């Protein structure tokens, strides 16, 4: 009988059904409640941090002449609730949040929720593309590197992945844009669509999906072609990270008794890799994928800037540089909630993949 710690996670799932379903539900419920409490914590942190920034939002939002008019400045403060004590502002903010109201942007004069709803799909489109590609490439390269530990392939992959992690994304984005768009003419210009296309009717906000719903194949192809470079840049960064982690995780599993036994038994390498090694390494990989996806959602400012991509990063930068407090808090909350959501999903997947997790909790 093997030690529990050395068992492949799947082995324990034999107890699925009946009594085992309850521990998972309890586990899931506990995770959901914890996440909700964390959301409240996130609102407090974003509110406090945003209001700690020195500077006057009135001065930042109004033109210099308008800001100097006491009546205009007072009206602005009253309109955005800035004339209330901070505690009152926070509870008003929380109360509004319960109604799905994130406030009104002092920069765009739009409800922050509607601004974010417009920006989020743009970021999601490149982030999803990048994470899918990164997982596929990162898992393959990481596994190959682990199997070829200490050999030339491993060294080459280490250099490549470190390069991906080390090169500044802003610089990489500009270089790739210059090469693929200007020199080679195989990528389109910046933005989500070429200027002779209209945005498809909004359903999801994802141009690739919406253009298909609208039956606009040419718009779909144009949207996909515009995704190419931003997704490539983000993938090059994320794939480096994933390759390193997958390599480490696979190496750990390869040292486990059950993996050694599978190989000793003469099972084909493909079977060993897919059924034993990667399944065993799935939890640490999942953790990194979750973190990487969260970081893609929040960390695309520079890439969005180069490719004129009107996503969350661009919106956050605009809001911060204009002291648009509702906008900054909205982005902070959105990113925080996205991280929590991704982590919640990862936690739930842990529970599904590894019964020890849900049983332990």
């Amino acid at each position: 009988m093997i030690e529990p710690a050395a068992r492949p996670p799947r082995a324990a799932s034999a107890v699925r059904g009946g009594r085992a379903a309850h521990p998972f539900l309890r586990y899931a419920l506990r995770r959901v409640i914890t996440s909700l409490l964390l959301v409240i914590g996130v609102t407090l942190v974003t509110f406090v941090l945003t209001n700690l920034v020195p500077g006057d939002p009135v001065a930042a939002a109004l033109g210099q002449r308008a800001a100097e008019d006491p009546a205009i400045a007072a009206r602005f403060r009253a309109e955005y609730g800035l004339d209330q004590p901070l505690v009152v502002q926070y509870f008003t903010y929380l109360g509004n949040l319960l109604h799905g109201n994130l406030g009104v942007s002092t920069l765009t004069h739009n409800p922050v929720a509607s601004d974010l709803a417009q920006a989020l799909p743009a970021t999601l489109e490149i982030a999803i593309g990048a994470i899918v590609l990164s997982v596929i490439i990162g898992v393959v390269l990481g596994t190959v590197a682990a199997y070829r530990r200490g050999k030339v392939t491993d060294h080459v992959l280490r250099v490549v992945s470190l390069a991906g992690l080390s090169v500044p994304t802003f610089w990489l984005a500009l270089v790739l844009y210059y090469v693929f768009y200007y020199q080679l003419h195989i990528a389109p210009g910046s933005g989500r669509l070429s200027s002779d296309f209209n945005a498809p009717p909004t359903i999801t906000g994802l141009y690739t999906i919406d253009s298909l719903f609208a039956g606009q194949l040419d718009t779909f192809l144009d949207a996909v072609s515009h995704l190419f470079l931003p997704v490539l840049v983000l993938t090059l960064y994320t794939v480096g990270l994933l390759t390193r982690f997958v390599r480490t995780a696979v190496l750990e599993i390869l040292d486990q008794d059950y993996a050694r036994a599978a190989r000793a038994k003469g099972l084909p390498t493909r079977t060993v890799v897919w059924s034993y090694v990667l399944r065993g390494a799935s939890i640490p990989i999942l953790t990194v994928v979750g973190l990487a996806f969260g970081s893609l959602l929040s960390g695309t400012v520079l890439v969005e800037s180069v490719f004129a991509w009107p996503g969350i990063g661009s919106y956050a930068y605009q809001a911060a540089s204009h002291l648009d407090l509702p906008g900054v808090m909205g982005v902070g909350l959105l990113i925080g909630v996205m991280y929590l959501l991704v982590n919640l999903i990862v936690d739930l997947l842990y529970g599904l993949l590894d019964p020890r997790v849900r049983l332990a909790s």
Partner: protein
Amino acid sequence: MADPVSLEGLMVFRTTSSGSTKRVVIGAAAVALTLMVAGCASGKTSTSTSKTLTIDKAFDLKTADPGRMYEPTGEMVDKALYETLLTFKGGDVSKVVDGLASLKESDDAKTFTLTLKGAHKFSDGSDLTADDVVFSLNRVIGLKGNPSFLLDGVTVTKKDSKTVVLTTATPTPALPSILANPALGILNEKVVTAHGGSTTESDAAEKYLNTHSAGSGPYMLSSLNLASQVVLTANTNYDGDNPAYGRVVIQNVQGATQKINVQGGSADVALDLSGTEASGLSGSIKVTSDPSANVLFLLLNQDPTVSKITSNPDFVKAVKEAIDYKDLVSIAGKGTSQAPGVVPSMFLGALNPSDELTTDLTAAKADLAKSGYAGEDVTLNFPSDLTLNGIEFPTIAQRIQSQLKGAGINITLAPAPVATELDAYRNGKETIGFWYWGPDYPDPSDYLVFTPGNVVGLRAGWAAGADPSISKLADAAAAGGTDAERATQFQDLQKALNASGPFVPLLQPGNNIAAKSSVTGVVYNAVWTIDIAALGSK
């Protein structure tokens, strides 16, 4: 040895997932996809009869509503959508010309009679009348938005169906220049009021005016996304010459990408290139480089409670003499020039280059010794994240620090994000501040703020009465007169400011516009950057 149960489980999973069900799912997805694209409608705009012009601009856009707009991108957009009573021709902002109306100004610069010329129609085909003019101007005043100050103290009255009279209590010689601002574009009263518009703070027409336009300009607003792009289409009811481009897309793109876009052909015009970026362009790309109307300057606080050092006149003089202006111009890049005074070189009353401040290190050291300065650290505050026409403030601040060190002045740099530093600047708390002034309107009277007791003067701790001789010159300049008289008055004022004021005019950053050679008529205008409707095609 692995647990066999787990292997069985895996096998079951693999068998079901790779079986016929999987093929059915894939087939269904393929069929669905095919059905979705079966219509194959095109998302492309119809360009068979009109050309599309693509302009790259780094957005600072907040709204397209003229009554609330006061940012460079908004000025350019609204110039295309709305017509103003008076206007400027090409890039010459020193002389106002007729727009929708002709002007008769009283000698005391307190009464301005504007008579509508010809018959003008809004984009919906209705006539533009004096009522629309009164409504539009009163709306700007009543909204108390960013551009409301333009009409501070102005009363608007309709005289007859073609004539509107603007009156002010004090002489306002700048009013004709102000009336050329696109923020004072004329709106269709009926359309705007039907969508919540009014001449009070309760006005609710902004949302409508951000999705439609209600003007008589050469273009109509097709769509607006504050973060990404603005699309304009030609107004078929425009009574002037039809614009060369039937559709215009203005995209929000940062400078470095703009250069690649215009080189690669996805943009026809790029508006925000730095001097360095612009100098690398040639061949099929034409670059128009002009000094912009922004003036970068240093202020030295005259309030002894803020700094005993900078409030010393000899120290101020030493700083002016220690700065190497030519060196600053050279690092700022293409199009940049030294600012001769606080009034930009293209405005009425600007100083001649011969009146610019000059470098004299020997004199600087002598004045520094007279001031009693003993090598103390002096703080230079500046916005760390501000880039103006491609000039990065930290770069210039570091160079100034090194130049002043050469004269023996020890500067400590104190960078901060513009949003946070603005407060200290506006409240007059900075010892030495490094900022810029962009014109509110192209008239020298906008620069009276640099005198004692006025907005920027107070930011430099320069209270009213601090320098009676300069205040006297300012009062004379404010009183108005003929253009020639005003030019002389403002030049005298600036000479005095350069000699003894607490401001050091440094640079007018270059404004570099790159355009494909097929685009003609690119002319920089200090108010609206470019007149889109004036761009031609060859």
